[in-house]
């Protein structure tokens, strides 16, 4: 009996080791802990990161928790990444405060942290590679106002309230509407956790409660797709939808005319700049506080332009 359970443990462990990549000791190792694999967005970030890693000759890993609520799992991943004494770390915080003690530990050990996508409420990271989400969401508000004629009612389907991106995109949109468009009323802000199904139900409820709604803004890929699904399923007419990021569902919706337009970040650029910055940090170079990776508004008219296509992903 002792041997059976032990054998089982040994077999499983042996199987794991056979899948282990050989560790090159002279290559710099930079683990990236992102917010998850939930959206194709993160796959695009990974692609950019791997591109930079190949150029710089460093080894990276890219991991994230199963969904964007698992704040403590992300911290466990960060702790495991630190165990390998990396040259630097890339980190996209799910919660802007929860990981700070661990980051401080890493900084004390001399490991530079490069924040990406969502920053942290601290000056520990040497730089943050991100989109200026406030400005991007403000642009979305401007476009929304333009499309609905400067007055009417809108609603927001946001993803979360704990990460920097969630807070900044929601506030960027709301503040711009309040500041420049007094005739537009935001009837509600609801949260779908970035999950398509949840966001669909949330958007449907908003549409049913506000049948004369003029516009809806989805603050990330999952939220925006949820809004599109809701409008499709209810058959509602006359709602102007503005989304965020890309992905096949959104780009198809824009081509069809169901979605008016969307803000795209530069996910490949985010991944790329993060790794580049991490390598620069290991060499002791000075880095700017924020690396603005840029954003664009795209709709049916410019979706096929080369510059837009370069930052879209499927």
């Amino acid at each position, binding site marked *: 009996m002792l041997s059976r359970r032990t054998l089982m443990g040994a077999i499983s462990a042996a199987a794991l*080791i056979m899948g282990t990549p050989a560790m090159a000791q002279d290559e710099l190792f930079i683990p990236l802990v992102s917010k998850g694999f939930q959206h194709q967005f993160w796959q695009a970030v990974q692609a950019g990161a791997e591109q930079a890693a190949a150029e710089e000759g460093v080894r990276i890993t890219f991991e994230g928790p199963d969904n964007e609520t698992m704040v403590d799992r992300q911290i466990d991943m960060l702790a495991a990444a630190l165990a390998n004494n990396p040259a630097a770390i890339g980190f996209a915080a799910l919660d802007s405060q929860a990981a700070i003690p661990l980051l401080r530990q890493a900084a004390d050990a001399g490991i530079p942290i490069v924040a990406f996508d969502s920053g942290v409420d601290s000056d520990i990271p040497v730089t943050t590679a991100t989109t200026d989400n406030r400005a991007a969401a403000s642009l979305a508000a401007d476009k929304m106002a333009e499309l609905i004629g400067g007055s009417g009612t809108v609603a927001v389907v946001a993803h979360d309230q704990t990460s920097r991106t969630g807070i900044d995109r929601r506030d960027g949109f709301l503040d711009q509407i309040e500041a420049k468009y007094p005739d537009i009323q935001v009837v509600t802000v609801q949260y779908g956790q970035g999950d398509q199904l949840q966001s669909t139900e949330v958007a449907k409820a908003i549409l049913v409660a506000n049948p004369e709604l003029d516009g809806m803004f989805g603050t990330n890929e999952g939220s925006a797709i949820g809004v599109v699904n809701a409008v499709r399923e209810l058959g509602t007419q006359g709602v102007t939808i503005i989304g965020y990021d890309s992905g096949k569902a959104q780009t198809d919706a824009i081509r069809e005319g169901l979605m008016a337009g969307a803000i795209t970040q530069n996910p490949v650029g985010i991944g790329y700049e993060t790794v580049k910055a991490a390598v620069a940090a290991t060499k002791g170079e000075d880095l700017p506080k924020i690396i603005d990776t840029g954003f664009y508004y795209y709709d049916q008219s410019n979706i096929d332009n080369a510059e837009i296509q370069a930052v879209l992903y499927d």
Partner: protein
Amino acid sequence: MTTVTTNAPASIVSKILAALMHQRLLAFASLIVLLIVFSFASPNFMQMSNMIAILQATSVNGVLAIAATLVIITGGIDLSVGTMMTFCAVMAGVVLTKAGLPMPLGIIAAIGTGAFCGFCSGTFVAKLKIPPFIATLGMMLILKGLSLVISGTRPIYFNDTPGFDQISRGSLIGDVLPFLPIPNGVLILFIVAGVASYILSRTVLGRYCFALGSNEEAVRLSGVNTDRWKIAIYALSGAIVGIGGLLIASRLNSAQPALGLGYELEAIAAVVIGGTSLSGGRGTIIGTLIGALIMAVLTNGLRVLSVAQEWQTVVTGAIIILAVYADMMRRRKAA
């Protein structure tokens, strides 16, 4: 054939002790093998900081798994441990941050909330005769929603309660022995495990836990008020989940209201790997603890080896199936 003899306590005790011995050795051996294998595979695995990271990662899941063990031994199951943990964390947040009350009250609030929720689940199962799977499934959804409602869907930070994060992150052991900075969260896990183990093996409540799981009808026919004992067990389990809520809130220095769904499956996985049978009547806390450690060691080891993330859950799932199968084989041979 499993029968319970309530007037021959000596045989039950010796039976339980024998099972303890057996299961403890099996699971423990697997854990040691894993540690050895990972240490050879990566020079970075066996460092103090990584061992502490593994223990820290186990603390919350371990406490939830201990709570689940109690219920599973009675032949039930508790799907609500994940969201109940979050709900208790949110209640601590309400008491400490929103109402500004002192820390001990927040701690009592979390544990008390857990005990109350457990009491409710136990009542649904015992008095209303709702199957535990359904009762705790309903509870899981109710608490998931209530967490979001009460917190206003925002995380509640504990910045105004200095020292709260020390419950999990601080290190009393480290203050005394600087080379052993074991976080308090881990210390709490082991204390909870010790107390639960004592309750299971040395108290009447523990005895009835096993009895209800082996043959509830026989216990009832012996004139014992099974309803009362069941509710007590669920309430105790809930109180332990409340401690889990404190741990996660302290670890993140915030109550994250959207978190928790899915954590119950990891807790149950730890219970199963540790050798406790889902049909009830048998189980040990030490087995659960080792099951939780095995999962944490596996996950951490694979991460340190940079094995692709997608494969980590594949391995865990395979281990669960192997563990249950090996356990079934062992019992079939013993019978």
